[in-house]
């Protein structure tokens, strides 16, 4: 499967995506604007609570082309963060007390400077999270990475949209489930996911379809039971993430006739407590070319940080960024629905 951009698909264009979630149908048009909803609860304009997480998207290249991918990542994507931009990131990290560095992609492991960068960040004594699709670790070129990451104390947060083969493969492609189980066993063998090892292995659940995630704790228990019984696999935590209506997931919503219902569901499930804790308030997202965004979703919609605040990693200024106004649109309802959603799971 090719990425939307390689297909020259209209939905590869962020403007088209924003137009769809705002104006595609009469129903969608009638939905209350996110800004107005936030204003009602005194959260507009939305301001940071203080940046604690430095999330770097090191490139859109991936060995997979999952149906729901908000990045539109895939083997045909060429956008990769250069060593020079990674050095700007290191410089920013060195001069701030931000403790967590979150590496995402694409498959972040595919950035040619990945190992060097992890090594450098580890020297700064920051907590490192790598968002892995698991299957990349089942390839010869990357099979030594689990040990490398263990040696550097990296926390691995990996995608597993469901505990069974049917749904996992439906979203991520035939054979994904079996490869994922194989890699999870390898990670367990070197200590990942074992309580006493200190090596964190977390799974990410996201709904395989047009519905919202259920209770995170209940899903975690179901995953724990099933993965242990079926495969003898252990992990630390499970994060539930709501699919945001952008990119390939938006394409699914439109082509399956679920757009109206899903948008309505997100809006009617708006939870003020989740709005209070949205991740953009404590996270900054750095794009592959060094551009700064309020989150990885805004990055894909090319909605840069507020004009007037730093907009590139070269211009890093933590105080100025902590004082910016966060840019929002209708997709943000995805993070405020139900128990809330963030890269670290539910927010309430």
């Amino acid at each position, binding site marked *: 499967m090719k990425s939307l951009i390689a297909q020259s698909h209209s939905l590869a264009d962020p403007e088209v995506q924003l137009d769809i979630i705002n104006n595609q149908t009469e129903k969608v048009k009638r939905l209350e604007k996110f800004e107005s909803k936030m204003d009602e609860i005194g959260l507009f304009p939305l301001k940071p609570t203080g940046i604690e997480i430095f999330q770097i998207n090191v490139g859109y290249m991936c060995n997979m082309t999952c149906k729901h991918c908000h990045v539109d990542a895939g083997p045909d994507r060429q956008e990769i963060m250069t060593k020079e931009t990674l050095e700007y990131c290191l410089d920013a990290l060195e001069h701030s007390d931000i403790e967590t560095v979150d590496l995402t992609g694409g498959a972040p492991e595919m950035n040619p400077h990945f190992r060097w960068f992890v090594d450098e960040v580890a020297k700064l004594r920051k907590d490192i999270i790598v968002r892995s699709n698991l299957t990349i670790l089942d390839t010869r070129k990357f099979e030594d990475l689990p040990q490398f990451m263990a040696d550097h104390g990296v926390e691995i947060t990996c995608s597993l949209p469901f505990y*069974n083969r*049917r749904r996992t493969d439906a979203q991520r492609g035939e054979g994904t489930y079996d490869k994922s189980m194989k890699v999870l066993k390898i990670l367990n063998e070197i200590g990942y996911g074992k309580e006493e090892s200190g090596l964190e292995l977390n799974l990410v659940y996201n*709904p395989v379809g047009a*519905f919202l995630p*259920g*209770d995170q704790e*209940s899903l975690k228990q*179901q995953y724990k039971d099933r993965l242990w019984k079926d495969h003898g696999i252990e992990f630390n935590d499970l994060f539930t993430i709501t699919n945001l209506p952008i990119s390939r997931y938006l394409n699914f919503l439109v082509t399956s006739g679920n757009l109206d219902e899903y948008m309505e569901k997100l809006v009617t499930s708006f939870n003020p407590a989740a709005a209070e804790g949205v991740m953009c308030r404590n996270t900054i997202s750095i794009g592959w070319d060094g551009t700064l965004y309020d989150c990885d979703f805004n990055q894909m919609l090319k909605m840069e940080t507020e004009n007037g605040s730093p907009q590139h990693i070269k211009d890093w200024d933590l105080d100025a960024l902590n004082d910016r106004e966060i840019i929002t649109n209708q997709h943000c309802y995805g993070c405020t629905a139900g128990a809330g959603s963030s890269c670290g799971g539910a927010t309430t």
Partner: protein
Amino acid sequence: MDKKYYDPEDLKKFGDVTEFQKELGDKFFEYYGSVFEEGALTKREKALIALAVAHVIQCPYCIDAYTDETLQQGCSEEQMMEAVHVATAIRGGSSLVHGVQMMNQVKKLSM
């Protein structure tokens, strides 16, 4: 004429039944909410029961609502279909068990 007896849009208006009888409607929804809270049974177990019952009473609104709910609660397709089979078995069994009454009557009437 574009009249139909079941419209998915009507499900979203369920709460509007209070418009004609507020007190009883409010009481019902409060009770309904409490029933589906986590209790001696989990929300997930309750959703599966509701899905099975929805099929017995053949309510299209309930089938849509509790398909969505069971998916959200992390139930697999197999679990959902097994719940429907439980409903079917009880429903079919309730017909079949009346066969005993028929047999009793046959035996009473026959030489």
